């Protein structure tokens, strides 16, 4: 399997937290972090243990369940979200790593008025999913793939979408959807 999805390895710039141990007075207790996460343009305050991943923070604490847990070990791509516009695996990212970053999930992709992103619309039109479980990750990956300039040919789309597994086997339709959305976004 080829993965083109990044994980964040650089620590937060203000550096108030390392390896689960509080390093300054900002943390109320050694085992709980008070975080403020900017998700889909809104601020969310939450108290979590340092070991809580972004994925579990989204799904279990903030009830943003659109981001899916497929493997919890960075191998399937179902949890793909955007951090500062780049695709990131939420299961391999601690919630604490993304404070101060701009996070976008599938719930934040359409316009406020409900107008779908071109990729979402193309996925529906091309029937680029069946069960729908890998779909949020596929769509987040596809949006970034197009933005990265990696949707120039079907071959390139297949390669740069290869980090998102789909067991229903919607791959040919996913390629068609990404191709269609890329063309619409170019014109």
């Amino acid at each position, binding site marked *: *399997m*080829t993965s083109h999805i990044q994980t964040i390895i650089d620590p937060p710039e203000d550096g108030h937290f390392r390896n689960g141990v509080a390093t300054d007075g900002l943390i109320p207790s050694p085992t709980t972090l008070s975080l403020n996460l900017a998700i889909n343009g809104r601020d969310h305050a939450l108290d979590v*243990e340092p*070991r*809580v991943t972004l994925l*579990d923070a989204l*799904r*279990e604490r903030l*009830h*943003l*369940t*659109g*981001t*899916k*847990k*497929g*493997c*919890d*070990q960075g*191998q*399937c791509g*179902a949890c793909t979200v955007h951090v500062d516009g780049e695709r990131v695996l939420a299961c391999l990212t601690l919630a604490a790593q993304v404070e101060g970053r701009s996070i976008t*999930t*599938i*719930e934040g*992709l*359409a316009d406020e008025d409900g107008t*779908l992103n071109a990729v*979402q619309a193309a*996925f*529906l039109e091309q*029937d680029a*999913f*069946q*069960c*729908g*479980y*890998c*779909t*949020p990750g596929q*769509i987040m990956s596809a949006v970034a793939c197009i933005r990265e300039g990696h949707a120039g040919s*079907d071959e390139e*789309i*297949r*390669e740069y*979408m*290869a*980090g*998102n*597994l*789909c*067991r*229903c*086997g*919607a*791959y*040919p*339709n*996913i*390629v068609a959807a990404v191709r269609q959305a890329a063309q619409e976004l170019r014109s």
Partner: protein
Amino acid sequence: MTVHDVKHAASDSARLEAVGGRLSRVDGPAKITGAARYAVEQQLEGLAHAVLVDSTIAAGKVVSIETQAAKAARGVIAVLTPDTIMKLSVASDWFGNPLAPQRTFCPLARDVTYCGQHIAVVIAETFEQAVSAAALVMADYDQAPALVELGDGTAGEIISIEGMTKEWGNAQAALAEAPVHLSAVYNTQRSAHAAIEPHGLIARWEGDRLTIWEPSQWLDGMARTYAEWFGIPFENVRLVSPYIGGGFGSKALALAHSAVAAAAAKMLGRPVKLMLTRSQNFTSYGGRATTRQTIDLGADKAGRIQSIIHRGVSEVSLEGMWVEAVGSITSIMYDTPNFSSRQDVVRLNTVLPNPKRAPGENPSAFGIECAIDELAHELGLDPLEIRLINYAEQDPHAKKAWSTRQLREAFAVGAEAFGWAKRSPAPRSMRAGHQLIGWGVAAGAYPVQRAHGEAVVKIMFDGSVEVESSSIDMGQGTYTILAQTAAETLGVPVSQVSVKLGDSHFARAGVTGGSRLAGIMTGAVHKAASQALDELIGLALSDPRLPFHGLQANTLAVKDGRIGSPRGDGPELSIAELMAAVGRDRIEAKGDTLPAGTTAEERYKNYTTIAMSIPHTEGDYSRHSWCAHFVEVKVDEDFGTVRVSRVVSALDSGRLYNPKLAESQWKGGIIMGIGEALLEEGIVDRRHGRIVNSNFADYMLPTNADIPDIQTISVGIPDPHSSALGGKGVGELGIVGVAPAIANAVFHATGKRVRDLPITLEKLRDGAEARERGCE
């Protein structure tokens, strides 16, 4: 409850919305925006999180479990072991047969029969606390010898499955007399369902009422199991599963981990959520069983088959029974006057294997569809030609006419689209640079499985329509085709129809498996909607205040949600106006496809067991879906890497209720077939019986980069003997025949016959065949 509202341009309208139209998924908008809430995504107050501890041996006894450290860990509510978890009653099997009613069922194992069996569970306030505490639980075992691999199928406890023997003529004598012989062993590997949504559940008790949120292919069957485990009435269990993130056969039964979560919730008096880790999804339930099959073919020099002798064996666990029936379609693909097929299973220290997409038919096709290709090569015949020479004009086993069999058409249409006529017959005769090119063909079949279903259709005061069923949509398109069926039957736009599925308190439904759901449920919805329509028209005709009063029944119809003369003359009312005029807030009809006089007990059995399935050879016909796959592979001459570069498949699933969605399912099956042919294999550590590649990095699923363009062509015609609206099975069919088509293409490319799946590069080395385990 799940409601899908569909809005699309007026130009889409009638053509797309009719049954058979290419309507986009009505549940699509929810899935592409993240709004679709899957079963275990329910948010409940006071939810506790459970994490399982699994055995690290394949056989033996758990002597002791050290739980003190885990219990002392922060946030831990309880650690349960075989000694402390509540004991349940033994539930009946999926035929409804009671299993050892005198015994109790302990969902955590003291006697270990496979590696990865659940032996303890940690429940904590948060998921993270449960995960870390579970790592502190230590077990001591008294280990016993284990048999963990099928090998050549001759070691261990071998059980003959007499009911699967099929014989006619004198196969041995005819084989001895036939001038052309072929004998080969074909092996298929253990493979995983690997749905991207893991198995798991939330269990909540309110008194003696249990609600389970769990991805499920069979709400009523699983609800029955929970009811029997806990000794509560069936009606007290509510199973909720609005969306299923992939099942492929794995999510039809309540499993040991389901029992653990429900028992823990009852003991703690709190709702409990338990999700299997990805690794546990490889060990907590079985995938497709490993199989071995021997095929001996006798033919005359013109290529006409005289005899087929088939012997198959599959692996099964020490407890329970599942047969991967490798002879299931061997008997129907070709006309032969003499035939013999038998099946054994071997008990191993493994988790019970499960049905996985086209169970039986898929490995069965690998045997017979490779063998016929080998025979063609032996005789210098084209692989298509030999299939037509031996074309079965009726079911050779059941001796009944096919209901419909568009296989000849599939061969012709597929060959034309693929360009088969340009194939150079000799192996290694087509290449592009250092890539050897191979073209292969294989056919497939899947029986039409039928049962009965029921549905509720409600016409509401505002003219909207609701359809309710406890059937499910795991991506096959149930929401969509039932909306199309109700809309067409009632004469309303799809945008006025809401389909609600995935709640066991709705009208009952049997298992979603064996490609039976669409045929059953379109029939049930059509019937319920027809009853509702009759009542609506009856109201229109009988109310003296309405302009239709006194007209004949057949002079009224509903079109675009308006009731009036079908000719468009005369008075017209919208459904909402009519309902207001007669003062009704709803018309509700329950329709089912069961015969008149069916008892309540039979109904319960129909929905909660598979005992009332109707044989595909019932009555005068033998009913199957059919397909032919044409595959091009490119094999690197130096490295032996195989890439599928082109697939054209022609398929006969009868009438398609929605071709857009059916094509997606076919392609999905073909892609799963590519995985089983080239990539996927559950590898067992022979020392400990562990699955060593129990994750998505080491268990190779096809990725987008592995899959070429796939062309699917429907050659089906409506089959009135198979379902009310003329459809046959779709979802299981696509995978059948893919692996042999690829193996045949690899042989054409390389001149090497690999009879052992998956076809990996080391098997294509010179002289590699002789060293492959289990191969002759």
